[in-house]
């Protein structure tokens, strides 16, 4: 089962996406996004990207989703809609679920599915170890290069974050 763990996690990833794109009440959409975020972190971790996967948990779920949760709690309605309470939402969810099941069935049967591009079976995304990787994780070294090769990038993103804060304060100031 462990050899197919990425495949299983990617199925749960897509199901989480179907869960919030069928547009239930935003609280439950946020729940689907949290599930997708956690499982997406697991997928990235399985490819050896430990820093990037934990960034998803920390920044994406811990930062952005918390803010979304608070804003939803502020602007929510009295009777929120879950997936089974409204036929539109349930229909969209079931449609997405069926499409995912059909795709999984074809992948398991034929080892290759070609819709827009080729899903080459379950063993496609195997990391090819080309050469000696040394004693350090090359992914962490690549991210550490942000501060040496990517100095201008740091300056631009830091400045745009500051400008974003100023813009948001101007928007919410009102009057």
């Amino acid at each position: 089962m462990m050899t197919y763990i990425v495949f299983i996690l990617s199925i749960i990833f897509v199901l989480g996406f179907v869960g919030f794109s069928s547009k239930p009440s935003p609280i439950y959409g946020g729940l689907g996004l949290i599930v997708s975020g956690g499982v997406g972190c697991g997928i990235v971790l399985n490819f050896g990207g430990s820093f990037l996967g934990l960034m998803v948990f920390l920044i994406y779920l811990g930062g952005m989703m918390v803010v979304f949760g608070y804003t939803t709690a502020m602007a929510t309605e009295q009777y929120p809609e879950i997936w089974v309470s409204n036929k539109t939402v349930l229909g969209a969810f079931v449609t997405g679920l069926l499409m995912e099941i059909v795709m999984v069935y074809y992948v398991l049967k034929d080892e290759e599915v070609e819709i827009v591009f080729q899903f080459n079976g379950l063993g496609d995304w195997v990391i090819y170890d080309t050469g000696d990787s040394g004693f350090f994780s090359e992914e962490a070294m690549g991210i550490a290069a942000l501060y040496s090769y990517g100095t201008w990038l740091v300056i631009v993103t830091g400045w745009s974050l500051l400008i974003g804060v100023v813009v948001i304060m101007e928007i919410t100031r009102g009057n």
Partner: protein
Amino acid sequence: YRSHLMSSLLCLEGMMLSLFVMASLTILNSHFTLASMMPIILLVFAACEAALGLSLLVKVSNTYGTDYVQNLNLLQC
């Protein structure tokens, strides 16, 4: 059936998450070490975008009480 503006922001966040995961997997698989900073930069700008979208939603919610999309009907043909 009432559509929330918040659902569109959640779908945008979902798109950013899927872009992040796809970019991370491609970069890790092809051992393109120097591009490992790109998903982080993507996340930074996605956070900016989410925060801006949320501030607009807060203003809409302050004016109309709820964030239903049907309330945004000032421009009528």
